[in-house]
C-alpha cells in the first residue's frame, strides 16, 4: 500500500521538477518573431542629417535594418562589425540603415562618431517603428529583400560574416527558416 502511494506521489512530483528543470534550458524572455518571410512594415525615419527616408524609397534594393541604442552594450560590440560589412557592399544595390530607439540625439551622434559609422542612421521618434517590428531586445537586425519581404531576423549582436551572407540571400530573395540569436539587451 505505501509503495503504491509513494509511486503515485513520485509520478506527480518528478514530472513537475523535470518541467521546472527544462525551464533552465530556454530563455523566458525570448519572443520568436512571426515576421520571417512576411512583408516588412512601412516606416518613415528621420535621419540625423535631417532628411526623411521611407521603406518605399528603398524598394528594389536589399536592405539591412538595424535597431540600436547608445546605452546598449551588445550594440557597441557589433558596431565595428557592421561598419566593416557596409564597406564591402556599399557600391552594390544594397542599403544599410540604422535606427536608434529610446535614445537622445546627443548620445546617438556620439555613438556614431565613436565607431565612425558611415551608413545612414536615424531616430525612431515615436517608437512606432520598433513596435511595428516587434523589437524587444536590441540590437535587432532585419534583412529585407528588394520586394520588401523580411528574409532574416537576428536578435542580438551579429558578426560581419553573417551580415554579408544574409544580405546576399536577401538580394536573391531567399528567406531563412529560422531567426538567429546573439548577445542582446532588453529594451526599456
Amino acid at each position, binding site marked *: 500500500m505505501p509503495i503504491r502511494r509513494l509511486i503515485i*506521489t513520485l509520478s506527480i512530483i518528478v514530472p513537475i521538477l523535470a518541467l521546472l528543470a527544462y*525551464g533552465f534550458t*530556454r530563455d*523566458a524572455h525570448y519572443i520568436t518573431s512571426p515576421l520571417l518571410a512576411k512583408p516588412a512594415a512601412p516606416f518613415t525615419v528621420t535621419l540625423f542629417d535631417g532628411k526623411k527616408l521611407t521603406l518605399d524609397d528603398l524598394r528594389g534594393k536589399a536592405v539591412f535594418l538595424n535597431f540600436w541604442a547608445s546605452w546598449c552594450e551588445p550594440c557597441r560590440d557589433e558596431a565595428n562589425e557592421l561598419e566593416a560589412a557596409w564597406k564591402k557592399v556599399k557600391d552594390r544595390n544594397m542599403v544599410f540603415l540604422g535606427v536608434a530607439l529610446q535614445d537622445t540625439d546627443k548620445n546617438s551622434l556620439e555613438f556614431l562618431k565613436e565607431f565612425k559609422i558611415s551608413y545612414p542612421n536615424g531616430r525612431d521618434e515615436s*517608437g512606432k517603428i520598433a513596435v511595428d517590428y516587434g523589437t524587444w531586445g536590441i540590437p535587432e537586425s532585419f534583412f529585407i529583400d528588394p520586394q520588401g519581404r523580411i528574409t532574416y531576423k537576428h536578435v542580438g549582436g551579429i558578426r560581419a560574416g553573417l551580415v554579408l551572407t544574409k544580405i546576399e540571400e536577401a538580394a536573391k530573395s531567399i528567406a531563412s527558416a529560422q531567426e538567429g540569436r546573439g548577445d542582446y539587451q532588453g529594451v526599456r
Partner: protein
Amino acid sequence: MTATLGHSAILLGFFAALAGIVGSLIAARTAEPRYQAIARYALVAQFTCVTLAAAALIYGLVTTDFSIKYVAFNTTRATPIYYRVTGLWGALEGSLLLWEWILIIFAAITAWLYRDRHKEMMPWVLLIFAIVSAFFLGVVGFLSNPFETLAPIPLDGRGLNPLLEDANMMTHPPLLYTGFVGLTVPYAFAMAALIVGKLDEAWIVSTRRWTIIAWFFLTAGNLVGAWWSYHVLGWGGYWAWDPVENAAFMPWLPATAFLHSIQVQERRRMLKVWNLSLIIVAFSLTIFGTFLTRSGILSSIHAFSSGPVGGFFLGFLAFILLGSFGLLAYRADLLKEQPELDSMVSRESAFLLNNIVLVSALFTIFLGTVFPLLSEAVAGVQVSVGAPYFNTVTVPLFLCLVFLMAVGPIIAWRRASWDNLKRNFLWPALVALAVGIGLCVWKVREFLPLLGFTLLTFVVCTILYDTALALRARNRIAGEGVLRGLITLARRNQRRYGGFVVHLGVVLIIMGIAGSMTYSIEKEATMAVNQELNVGNYRILFTGLKGAQQPTHFRVEAAFHVFHNGGDEGILNPALKFFPTQQSPIGRAVHQSSLSEDIYLILSGFSEVDRNQATLKVLVRPLVIWMWIGGFVITLGTLICILPIGKPTPQDD
C-alpha cells in the same frame, strides 16, 4: 571593512548551521544533553552571525558605502534614508539575507518557547531548521553574496528601481517573507512528528498559533501587494496573475486549508494524511516561490535578475518534496487508523470539501502559471496565460469557498440532522435569498455576480444569526448585554469568534473584488480645457495642463476637477514623467476613493502643439475600498484569535 565583516559573519553562520545539523542529529539519536546543547548553541551562533551580517548590510546601505556592490547597485547618495534601509530587500542577495534573518529569528523563538516540551521531537525540529538555514546561508555565502566589493569605488550608486520607491516597499516584502518563513515552523514540527512517529495531535496543538500568524502575514502580504499595484502602477488593477504574484498566492491556499483542516484532526482524529500533505505542499510552495522569482524560467515583472541560484533552489525543492513525501510514505502504517466520515452533511465533510476546493484552486493556478513552460516543452509553442484563464477557473471555486464559509463553522459535527440544518440556516438562507432577489431587481443581472453577492449575504447572515442566538443565551444565563456578551463569547471561544470576524473580513474583500470585476467602467477621451466628461456617477472637468522641470525628470501635470454624485471631490492631478534617457514617459495615475466606488485617472497623452488638450483615461472601480477595509477586519479577527485574552473555562462550540 563592513563587507568583510558581513561576509565572514555569513560564512561563520553557515558553519554554525552545519554544526547545528550534526548536533541535532546526534542529540536526536542519543538524547544526550551535551549534543542538545551543541544544537542550541549552534542556533544562537547562527542568530548572532546573521543579525551581525544584516546589521552590516544595513549599515553599509545607510552610510552609502559604495565599496559594497550591493549598496552601489541599490542606492544613490540622493536616496532617502528609509529607502536605503528597504534596499536590504530590494534585490536578490539582500532579500535572501532577509529571508534567512526571519528564519533564524523564528527558529530561535521556537527553540526557546518549547525548550521544556516535546523532548523527543525538539531535536528533529531543530534539525529541520538547521537544514533550511544551512541552505539559505550557503546560497548567501557562496552563490549570491551581498557583500561583494567594487574596486574602484564608484562616486555614486545606481539607485533603487523608481517603482520600488514607495511606502509599500517597507511593508509588502517583510510581511510576505514573514508569512512564508512562518510556515517553516509547522512544517518542521510535522517532519519531526513523522520522523519520531508521534502522529497524534500534539504537534498540531503546539503550532496552531504559528499557523494562524503565518497565515495572517501571508494574507496581509498579498493584500498590501495588491494595494501597491493598485495605487502605484497606474493601470487601475490590483492583481495581474503574474507568475510571481501567483507564486506568492499559491502557498496561501494550502495554508488556509491546513488552518481549517487541523481542527478536524484535533476534534475527530481524521484527515491526518491531508494535514501532513497540506503543510508539506505549503512549505514547498514557499521554496517554489523563491525559486520562481530568482531562476528566470518564467518572465515576470517581479523577477529578480537570474543567477546561478535557480538550479540550487530547484535542487533544494526536489530534496524537500522527495524527502517529505518519502517520510510520509514511510509512516503510512501509523496513519491508517482513523474514524470514518459519519455523514456527507456534517462539519467534517464541509472541511474535507474545503480542502478539496482549495487544492483544486491551487492546481488550476499552478497549471496556469507553468503552462508557458509546458507548452514550450511539449509542443514548442510559446503561449502566455493571463487573466481570462485564471478568472474563469478560480471564480467558481472561490464561490464554493464562500458557501463553505457560511456552512462550515455552524453545521454540526458528525451528522447534521434536518432539524439542526433548519434551525441554523433557514433564516439566514431566506434573508440571503431576499437580498439576492432585491439585487437582481435593482441592477445585478449577471449570474455569477448575483450568486456571489447572495452567498456573501448568506455568510454574513449565518454569522450574525449564530452570534445573536449565543448573545441571547448569554443574556438569559448571565444577564449580559450585547457588548458585554460579545466580549464574554470572544474570550470563551477565541478561535470561533476570531474566525467569524476573519470570515467577515474575507467577505468584504470578495465583495470588493466582485464589484470591481463586474461593474468597472472604462472611458478614454481627448478633452479641451473646460470640457467635461461624464463617466458613471462622476463628472470630470479638465482645467489645464502644467509643465515643470523636476530634479530628475520633466513633469507634465493635468488638473481635473472631479464631481461625484454632484458633490465636489476636489482636483486630481495625473501626470506624465519624462526621464531623459527613456523614450516613453512613466505615468503617475491618481485615484479618489469612496465607499461605493473609486475613480482612477490616467493621463494617456497630451497634444504638444495645442497646450489645451489632453487625453484622459478614466476607470471607475466600484467597491474597491472594501478590499482594504476587509484587510483591517481580518487583522482584528486574527488578533482576537491569538491574543491571550481567554477565560479559563473554554466552552465547546
